[in-house]
């Protein structure tokens, strides 16, 4: 029973990580939005799995919220932004694709090394997934710093949030529901604020390339 639980959790964590890697490999915004949607659904599946095997009823509610907010609402908003800015593809990021992927691989290994003591100290059947969740956090952080388009950075940030939620689910079977709700609200608000920023950037510079923000200095 426990081994099935552990296998499922590791499988879902690796899927979440792979959807994170899509941001480094693909160039079109629709692919990013799809990857984010699928990643959120996988995250909901993790919540449901942990809820089922760990007998935590609250997590079903969390899974439902995840599907509603990150699986449906945010992707819809993202698609609306994509219709406006989608033609601006991530053609020349700060770090090229092949290097990015290798860096991502190293970051995942680094995440494994960092989480080693935590995994060793943990008794939970979910512990094997924690290094992968840490890897997702690091990879999304890398996306945020290495990509130029504001929209890609926003999606990278959302994936970072997903990674942290995954880490919480695996490391502590989720956080108290009231905190979870607060985090959801924060993420949604943060996303809306970022959306307004992206629109403003586009209005001012007629592009969402954040390189252009350098011009503000003059």
């Amino acid at each position, binding site marked *: 029973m426990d081994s099935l639980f552990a296998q499922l959790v590791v499988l879902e964590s690796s899927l979440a990580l792979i959807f994170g890697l899509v941001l480094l490999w693909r160039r079109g915004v629709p692919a990013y939005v799809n990857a984010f949607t699928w990643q959120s659904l996988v995250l909901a599946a993790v919540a449901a799995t942990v809820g089922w095997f760990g007998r935590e009823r609250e997590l079903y509610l969390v899974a439902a919220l995840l599907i509603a907010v990150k699986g449906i609402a945010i992707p819809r908003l993202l698609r609306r932004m994509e219709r406006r800015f989608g033609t601006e593809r991530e053609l020349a990021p700060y770090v090229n694709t*092949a290097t990015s992927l290798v860096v991502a691989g190293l970051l*995942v290994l680094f995440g494994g090394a960092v989480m080693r003591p935590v995994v060793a100290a943990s008794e939970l059947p979910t512990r*094997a997934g924690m290094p992968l969740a840490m890897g997702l956090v690091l990879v999304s952080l890398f996306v945020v710093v290495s990509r130029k388009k504001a929209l890609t950075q926003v999606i990278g940030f959302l994936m970072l949030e997903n990674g942290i939620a995954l880490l919480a689910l695996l490391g502590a079977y989720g956080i108290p529901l009231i905190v979870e709700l607060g985090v959801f609200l924060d993420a949604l608000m943060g996303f809306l604020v970022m959306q307004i920023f992206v629109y403003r950037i586009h209005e001012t510079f007629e592009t969402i390339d954040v390189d252009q923000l350098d011009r503000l200095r003059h």
Partner: protein
Amino acid sequence: MTGWAIEIAQAALVLALAPGLVGVVRWLKARLQSRRGAPPWQPYYELRKLFGKDVIVSSNASWLFRLAPYVVFASTAAAACLVPSLAVTRPLDAVGDLLVLVYLLLLGTVFLSLAGLDPGSAFGGMGSSREMTVAALAEPTVALAIFALALSAGSTNLGQIVGRTLADPAAALSPGHLLAFAALFVVMLAETGRLPVDNPATHLELTMIHEAMVLEYSGRYLALIEWAAALKLLVFFALLGNLFVPWGVAAVAAPAPLALALGSLLLKLAVIAVVVAVLETRVAKLRLFRVPELLSVSFVLALLAVTSSFLGR
């Protein structure tokens, strides 16, 4: 004694089956593209015809050019013998493990590239340089992907990896296996020159890889190289089928399990052939400069596979 008999039967089977497999993939592709297509056994006719033809060799070519087809064919055939396509325990298991397999395949690639450079034609040189670009990225991925399996099986011996997964069926669904499968599938496309890395159906494109290297060959040399290419495809299909989905591979050398193993091998090959044909119909060829990106994706997948089978131990 029966062990060697099975070994010989398996080698003969693999050699005989390889051109047919290429024919089936071509035929499936043609049907999917609403063409009638040549029958699946067409490659056998082609091989027979090529073996009967005279060899024409460029006056600039050295002994290397004449030697290369034999090396390519022999190394690929040897690699094909190492793959447990019918039975788990075989006498050749003691001869080589997965590292030997990877380097046998690489040996063929290196000689083919040398032969592409040898006659001094512009196309051959271009093909060789591209092949090396691809191989340099693909070979480590093959090794890493199979290594992920070896890590959970505790041995680099291909037969033991298969036996281990047979004994513990849940391992086939572990993330390490799934990721390694995905990585090896992408590398298979690159190594055997399928779309989206190379187009096996053309002699006209400037971006061709395999066909550019063998452009100077004719007659029985060309036949050997084509046969070796078909064998390589079969080796990768059999690796994908038998290492990751080992059910059906005979654990004991008795007639009934061996017949079952033959049936399941043919089924697995057919399924992978359909997948490849559908994929080749759906995707366009990648720009040459994006090929390294695709291969680094598969490298990262293989790295993740190793990481997660290391963590999941």
